[in-house]
């Protein structure tokens, strides 16, 4: 009895609720210890029933990434090697997203959904609506003219684990593809584009450096896409594939918040208008496994003759 009292008073607990539980644990464990009889609880839970929850939402917070502009799990602009959803290797997860990008001359909406299978395979779909606002009128297409693009994505995680493999430099790696189909074939051909559909292929590596609270990602993409494919695929300057680098760096401020920046190099296939690299600076907030919010400042360079398209990027993701 004296022992218990000393223990109970010596320990200072900050949360009162926890204090009760802890005190109960300590007392129960000590009370149980000297008893020569076996533990009173018979083994109903002794047989570890491997009852796997197919929707376990068992990944660590934020380790499903967010939905990038083309629908894959990643940062905002570029795919990462992480698989969408909060499923572990034993389960299935999914996400839906809506992303809004608003620059000086244009607005882009991306809406989509993705499924993660056993933290191994990712399937995604995104619909991008690119609103030319007043530029459409200047180009003779009419104010508010939109290019609409469907993106079907698949990603396969190849090797490594971004989180657990903290004792090696080995990153988590994945390969993926994005099949894109644009509905404005006539306009695309008129501006020098070669096709209204195309496929991007990418390899990506993601590594969490826990000691520094930093996450790094590098992606190489083989692509013919002009401005994501919104202005078609291939062009009069270059009609073939080019390999483009995409990089992200994030610093974890807390379990729920990360800040960082991204870079995405792009081809420059069309002679009618130059295309530049994309940049962003972001903050992502993961209040729970079921929702995330990303806010970014983007610099999308020149788009279809409109200079310095800078603006805001907002994205919400919901899933499990």
């Amino acid at each position, binding site marked *: 009895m004296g*022992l218990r009292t*000393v*223990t109970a008073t*010596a*320990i200072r*607990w*900050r*949360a009162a609720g*926890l204090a009760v*539980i*802890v005190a109960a*644990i*300590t007392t129960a*464990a*000590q009370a*149980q*210890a*000297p008893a*020569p009889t*076996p*533990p009173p*609880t018979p*083994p109903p*839970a*002794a047989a*570890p029933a*491997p009852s*796997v*929850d197919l929707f*376990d*939402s*068992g*990944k*660590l*917070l934020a380790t499903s990434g967010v939905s990038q502009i083309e629908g894959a799990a990643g940062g905002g602009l570029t795919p990462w090697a992480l698989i969408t959803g909060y499923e*572990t*290797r*034993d*389960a299935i997860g999914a996400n839906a997203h809506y992303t809004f990008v608003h620059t000086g001359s244009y607005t882009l909406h991306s809406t989509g959904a993705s499924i993660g299978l056993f*933290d191994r395979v990712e399937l995604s779909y995104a619909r991008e609506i690119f609103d030319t606002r007043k530029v459409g009128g200047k180009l003779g297409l009419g104010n508010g003219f939109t290019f609409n693009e469907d993106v079907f994505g698949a990603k396969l995680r190849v090797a490594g*684990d971004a*989180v*657990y*493999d*903290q*004792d090696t430099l080995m990153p988590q790696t994945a390969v993926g593809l994005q099949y894109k189909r644009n509905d404005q074939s006539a306009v695309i051909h008129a501006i020098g584009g070669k096709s209204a559909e195309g496929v991007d292929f990418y390899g990506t590596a993601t590594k969490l450096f*826990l*000691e520094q*609270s930093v996450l790094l990602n590098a992606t190489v993409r083989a692509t013919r896409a002009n401005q994501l494919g919104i202005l078609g695929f291939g062009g009069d300057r270059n009609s073939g594939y080019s390999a483009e680098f995409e990089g992200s760096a994030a610093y*974890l*401020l*807390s*379990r729920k918040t990360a800040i960082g920046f991204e870079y995405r190099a792009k081809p420059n296939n069309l002679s009618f208008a130059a295309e530049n690299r994309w940049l962003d600076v972001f903050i992502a907030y993961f209040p729970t496994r079921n929702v995330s919010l990303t806010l970014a400042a983007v610099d999308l360079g020149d788009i279809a003759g409109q200079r310095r398209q800078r603006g805001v990027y907002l994205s919400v993701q919901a899933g499990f």
Partner: protein
Amino acid sequence: MEAISRMRARLCALCVVALLATPSCTAPVGETTLYADLGGEAGITRFVTEVLAISVADPRIAKDFDNINLVWLRDHIVRQFCELTGGPCRYTGRGMYASHKGLHLATSNFNFFVEDLQIAMDHEGVPFPTQNRLLKILAPMYHDIVTR
């Protein structure tokens, strides 16, 4: 076997009491160790005690602690963390594979415990970058602990 663990538990309880009664007996180590940044043995004991309290009340993983003497477990974890972070302790328990294989833990069990550990360290005021330095050391244990 059970008798031994019970004896150990008793001893451990005594150790905890002794430690708490005389916190100054914790050997001072270089300021640069993670052990020191975690608040030494007293600091580690605080958040380990708390994570166990959170975990046994966490419906996602409470079952994993059935029939486990929590005082004994706390003492083992504290000593292990102490040694791994550069403290003056020696962990003498079983390896992570041997001690967990009977539990058939899945990835989600591991992650939910990590999450509870993060919450416990938050409550105890361990700065987030310091938490991550500890998690960096613990993360590779995943491969031994998760066997399902």
